[in-house]
């Protein structure tokens, strides 16, 4: 297997490299862009945590939440205002940013601003979306759909590759287990890593209970630390968590975003487990138990 390194960042922002035996990277921020002031506050607060514990990171926030359960749920700032805020975050803090896009016509503008372009889980096998993502020429954060097997993600990878993309990070955000529950199959990480691309664990969406509250989704945030430690031990290359300073007032995913006050604790644990795993790799070599 040829382990690929994904390089995130252009222009005057920090570069983040993600791949085999590299430091664990973090993608984090509020689910939705709420305002410029709030985005700046969150970028500053998360940046300080990452600086203190020395974790490379990418600011995440989205301008259009197109998979909300209810028609009157907050949909986002819209593409123009949202991308301007993300551009401002880049310029002010010198950090790379990531946002998703839900319509192929939004991809070009998203790629012009964002250092990393995200494909939403529900759209992870849509050919038009994947083609548009690849054509941005930015690295792609491709989330595994809750309905997809980990090996099936290779089909989506091949669609991206067919359109010239060779910078891909594959993420798990849980798999449907019945109607209102998700489960994390930790074997999805080594299976998706067989594509050669690095993998990411989306912890805050993994504890989601889809539409468990009728017209909105609930979540069991108390399990975030357990799942993060398990995923880090399993060999992820990046960790994704949506973070908010006041989850109760969050305009999107209020029941799943991690309270900012817990970020340093969880991220520190993830980093330690990751580094311990790298030590185990040095000591015992690559996993090679009962190879096929």
């Amino acid at each position, binding site marked *: 297997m040829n382990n690929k390194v994904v390089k995130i960042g252009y222009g005057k922002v920090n570069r983040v490299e993600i791949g085999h035996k590299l430091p664990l990277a973090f993608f984090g921020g509020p689910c939705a862009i709420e305002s410029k002031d709030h985005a700046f506050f969150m970028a500053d607060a998360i940046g300080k945590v990452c600086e203190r514990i020395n974790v490379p990171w990418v600011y995440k926030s989205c301008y259009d939440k197109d998979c909300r359960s209810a028609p009157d749920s907050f949909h986002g700032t819209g593409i123009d205002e949202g991308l301007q805020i993300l551009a401002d975050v880049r310029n002010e803090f010198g950090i790379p940013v990531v946002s998703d896009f839900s319509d192929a016509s939004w991809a070009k503008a998203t790629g012009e601003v964002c250092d990393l372009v995200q494909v939403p889980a529900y759209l992870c096998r849509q050919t038009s979306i994947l083609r548009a993502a690849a054509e941005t020429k930015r690295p792609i954060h491709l989330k595994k759909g809750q309905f997809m*097997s980990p*090996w099936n993600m*290779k*089909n989506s990878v091949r669609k991206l590759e067919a359109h010239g993309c060779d910078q891909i990070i594959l993420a798990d955000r849980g798999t449907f287990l019945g109607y209102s529950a998700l489960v994390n199959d930790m074997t999805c990480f080594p299976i998706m890593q067989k594509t050669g691309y690095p993998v990411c664990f989306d912890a805050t969406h993994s504890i989601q209970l889809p539409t468990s509250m009728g017209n909105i989704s609930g979540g069991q945030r108390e399990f975030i630390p357990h799942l993060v430690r398990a995923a880090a031990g399993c060999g992820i290359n990046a960790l994704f968590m949506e973070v908010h300073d006041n989850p109760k007032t969050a305009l999107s995913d209020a029941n799943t975003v991690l309270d900012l006050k817990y970020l340093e604790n969880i991220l520190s644990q993830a980093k330690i487990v990751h580094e311990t795993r790298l030590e185990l790799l040095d000591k015992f070599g690559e996993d090679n138990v009962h190879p096929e």
Partner: protein
Amino acid sequence: MSTQNKMTVKDVMLGIKNFPVVDKNSILKETLEKMDFFGYGIACITNNNHELLGIITDGDIRRKLLSVQKPLPAFFIDDAINHAIKNPTVTSSSMSLANAIDLMEQKQVWDLPVVDKGKLIGMLHLHPAVKELLI
């Protein structure tokens, strides 16, 4: 028999477009489809320079099916090269047909990829080869 012994592999081999050849990025499903299309129990895997990277045969697949523990869809989407024999027995186009058939007998194989100057240029299949020698 003396006339027939002068025949070489080149005289009988299948041309490159007449047997299953797949790209190094092909998945197992695509490889099996190509084997089925041509009706041969072997596929050759090559890179962009037509160098032979490996072969897959019906027998390899049969043994894999008896040993693989993962779901069939996961097996189908594996890269074919990961299930290939990386250093297969090959022949050259200039080898005498009789010697090539001897080689097939020694190795108990029905097909030999034909490699000249490091590049795959054809395949020797047992049936037409024997038929030529029996004429």
